[in-house]
């Protein structure tokens, strides 16, 4: 029975990565390495205004003074930042006003990923901004959005068409001095998504960005900026995949969200970068800084993430709850398998009065992987009557993996209440026995239990994503989800 169970767990945890193909697209690249010339090259390529080049150069000179952070519970091999191509773009990207003009290879890529731009456009009513390597290749549904005065476009386009907005908000939540990877991204970011929801508008469709690393030896550095004006609402989704390669590729992104009075932003991520093979070779290094600020009263930011990919994940989506009565939410399922390492969690900074935050984190580790939750809840002196509840559970499948919890709670106020609880366990024999004696075989039982365990978070995902996320859990823990 026991060895049976082990076999099943092995099977369950050894699914193959299904997005590992490479698309042969003609690419345009910057020379390898990082110096001021690279930055000027990128900036020139994108025909950027001076303020942006200045921003990049300032960030670069600051980055040069910094060292790679070592505090995370990760074993990060030394990264040679001169051995990365900082800009790679598919050729022929101009004048993409009609989907027919998109490189057929590219369309095929997205078809394989199950996000046919065409189909997506017609059936699901989700506006998609697809980003391959460094640049955005296609944004759908722009007309519909334009009717509501919503701006949803690539970052490059935003810089050209709405430089004032970009200038005003770029780096306002995540400054280039924030951390090592934020500084690097600020210096070399190539594209990303830009989204602006005007006052009182409820975005009628889900907005979505697909990120794809394709070219070898490249790093992807994109930036997302979302601004929700007073009383607006938007649900934003993000997905990512990469080809299977023996080398490690780097992804260092920044997401900034600004939310005004009574507005709400819902940000969902399904992160499925290539996690490396079973021996831990290859895979994406994912160093992401995501932060939103609830600037206005009664505003809300909610982060939902399903993390299944990447060899190394270093990611702490956070909320700065500045406006009174603002709400921050973080829901996460992180699955690590084989030799994957994840150090992820959330930061909730309470500044305004009556601010509330919830953190639900579910970690699942299998194989030789290590999965850590690291979080910060900070309640400042002025944040009267603030409330936080955090729950981080870890599930261990197999005896070679590790699950860790590193919460930090800092309270400077007497009227606030903070609660944190966490548990770590394996699937209990009692649960399995219960399922078995009701005629459910062990494999399905494990699936059932894992699914039930992650359900609390999965149900927070938008419907389109929930389906995909469930599929992903299936792939990551093959055969387990009934």
């Amino acid at each position, binding site marked *: 029975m026991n060895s049976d169970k082990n076999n099943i767990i092995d099977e369950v945890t050894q699914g193959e990565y299904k997005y590992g193909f490479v698309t042969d697209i003609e690419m345009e690249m910057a020379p390898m390495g990082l110096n001021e010339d690279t930055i000027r090259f990128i900036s020139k390529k994108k025909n950027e205004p001076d303020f942006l080049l200045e921003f990049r150069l300032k960030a670069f000179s600051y980055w040069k003074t910094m060292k790679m952070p070592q505090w995370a519970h990760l074993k990060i091999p030394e990264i040679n930042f001169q051995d990365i191509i900082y800009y790679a773009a598919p050729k022929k990207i101009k004048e993409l006003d009609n989907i027919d003009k998109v490189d057929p290879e590219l369309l095929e890529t997205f078809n394989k990923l199950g996000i046919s731009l065409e189909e997506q456009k017609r059936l699901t009513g989700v506006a998609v901004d697809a980003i391959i390597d460094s640049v955005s290749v296609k944004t759908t549904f722009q007309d519909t959005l334009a009717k509501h005065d919503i701006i949803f476009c690539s970052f490059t386009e935003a810089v050209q068409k709405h430089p004032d907005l970009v200038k005003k908000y770029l780096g306002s939540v995540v400054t280039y001095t924030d951390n090592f990877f934020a500084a690097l991204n600020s210096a070399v970011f190539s594209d990303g998504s830009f989204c602006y929801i005007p006052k009182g508008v409820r975005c009628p469709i889900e907005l979505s960005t697909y990120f794809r690393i394709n070219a070898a030896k490249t790093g992807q550095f994109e930036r997302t900026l979302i601004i929700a004006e007073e009383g607006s609402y938007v649900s934003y989704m993000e997905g990512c995949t990469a080809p299977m390669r023996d080398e490690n590729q780097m992804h260092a992104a920044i997401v900034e969200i600004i939310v005004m009075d009574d507005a709400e932003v819902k940000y969902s991520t399904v992160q499925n970068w290539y996690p490396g093979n079973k021996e831990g070779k290859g895979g994406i290094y994912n160093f992401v800084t995501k932060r939103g600020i609830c600037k206005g009263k009664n505003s809300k930011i909610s982060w939902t993430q399903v993390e299944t990919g990447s060899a190394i994940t270093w990611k702490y989506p956070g909320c700065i709850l500045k406006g009174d009565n603002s709400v921050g939410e973080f829901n996460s399922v992180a699955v690590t398998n084989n030799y994957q390492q994840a150090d992820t969690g959330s930061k909730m900074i309470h500044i305004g009065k009556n601010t509330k935050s919830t953190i639900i984190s579910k970690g699942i580790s299998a194989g030789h992987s290590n999965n850590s939750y690291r979080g910060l809840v900070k309640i400042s*002196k002025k944040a009267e009557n603030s409330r936080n509840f955090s729950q981080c559970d870890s599930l261990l499948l197999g005896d070679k993996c590790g*699950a860790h*919890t590193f*919460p930090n709670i800092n309270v400077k106020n*007497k009227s606030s209440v903070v609660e944190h609880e*966490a548990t770590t366990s*394996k699937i209990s024999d009692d649960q399995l026995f219960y399922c078995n004696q009701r005629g459910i075989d062990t494999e399905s039982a494990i699936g059932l239990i894992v699914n039930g365990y992650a359900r609390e978070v999965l149900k927070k995902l938008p419907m389109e994503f929930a389906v995909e996320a469930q599929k992903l859990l299936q792939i990551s823990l093959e055969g387990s989800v009934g």
Partner: protein
Amino acid sequence: MSKQNKNIALKNKLINLFEENKNSIFKNEPQYISNLRNQAIEKFYQLGFPTTKMEGWRNTDLTKALSKNYNHFFSSKQNDVDVEELFKCEIHDFDTDIVSFLNGFYVNGNSQLRTMSDGTIVGSLAKAIKQYPEIFENYYNKNVQSDKNAFVTLNTAFAQDGLFIYVPDGVEVNKAIQMVSIINHNENLFIQNRNLIILGKNSRLTLVHCDDSINQQSSFNNSVTEIFVEENANLDHYKLQNLNNDSTLINSTFVYQKAGSNASTNSITLNGGLIRNDTFVKLNGQMCDANVYGVYLMDKTQHIDNHVFIDHVEPNCSSNELFKGILDEDATGVFNGHVLVRRNAQKTRAFQSNKNILLTDTASIDTQPFLEIYADDVKCGHGATVGQLDTEAMFYLRSRGITEANAKLLLMYAFAAEVINKISIKPLRDRIDDMVKKRLRGELSICDKCVLHCGSPAKEIHFDIDMSKV
């Protein structure tokens, strides 16, 4: 002067002091102890004092404590004190063997080391080093973080005296041993207290460790305690800390447990300027039990920092941590619990809990309950809460005519009682209970001399019921 410079000034002063006083430090001691000292001072030179840039010290700033001028003594200076008067310490109905230390040195010139009828050896560490070199070679400095903990290296280099207890195999010490360490001097003192406690197989010991100060002089006590609990031995350890507001106490305790042993540590912090309790427990055998409890009641600008590291090396062990604290006025608190479950340590049960009440907006708490788990068949959990007194409970009490002050007192007392009730010796529990009540009423001060030196038995909380509201 910048923070860094101040730290370096004291560091250099201490290193020079060591060089200058080598003769008196090394006097009459076995060669290997001197070698340890030399290695340790070398290591301390490399490490320096911790700063807030280090993760483990991020929330505990030592700059102020380290920038004071301290005197360092290499021999006992206590001729002019009425020792009898100072240590007349008793707990009602609780018979203890008192071992007294004044300013870091053993008091009681004549019998520095006693061997009791059951073979237990109790007394001064300085004397024991010379008398029992074979025990020291086996145990001394064997289970401390000698390479990364600056305060431990500093202590190893300078340590002159402290408590030594050796309980032979199979001996159950019936009478609790009480260590009373008092600081009373008219100059600022830097004290390096070093204790070594060994429990042989199947033995049992209750140890009460009291840290007190008598006057308002600044002091810096860098205390290191090594405890070895052999197979199936049982240790009950209580730490009572009641120091003045200008004192600094760095208390590093290293517990090493072998199979089937049981060790429980209970720290009760009632007063102190800056107190850091570092507790390291290594469960190095199967079927061990470790309990680490603590309660802290701080006010004014006091700072309390409890760090607990529990290392589960072997399978089938359990550990339990419970820390509760009430922070008033400008007090600051830090809790860091770290449970490490190694790959081999299957069937581990480990629980951690830290609960805090903040009474003012100027008090603050940082809590970090960490779990690091590499084995899959485990049950581990942790919880942390920060809040205030329950408003509904408050309303209930007020609606029964209990004044606000009393209701508050009752609730705070009830909050702390969860930890106090873990004290297994009734007379000691009653006494500490009383101390906590007094502390909460604001009656307790360091002029009560020894923490346990309050004559009358426990007084109930007196309710002045406001009759006009009934």
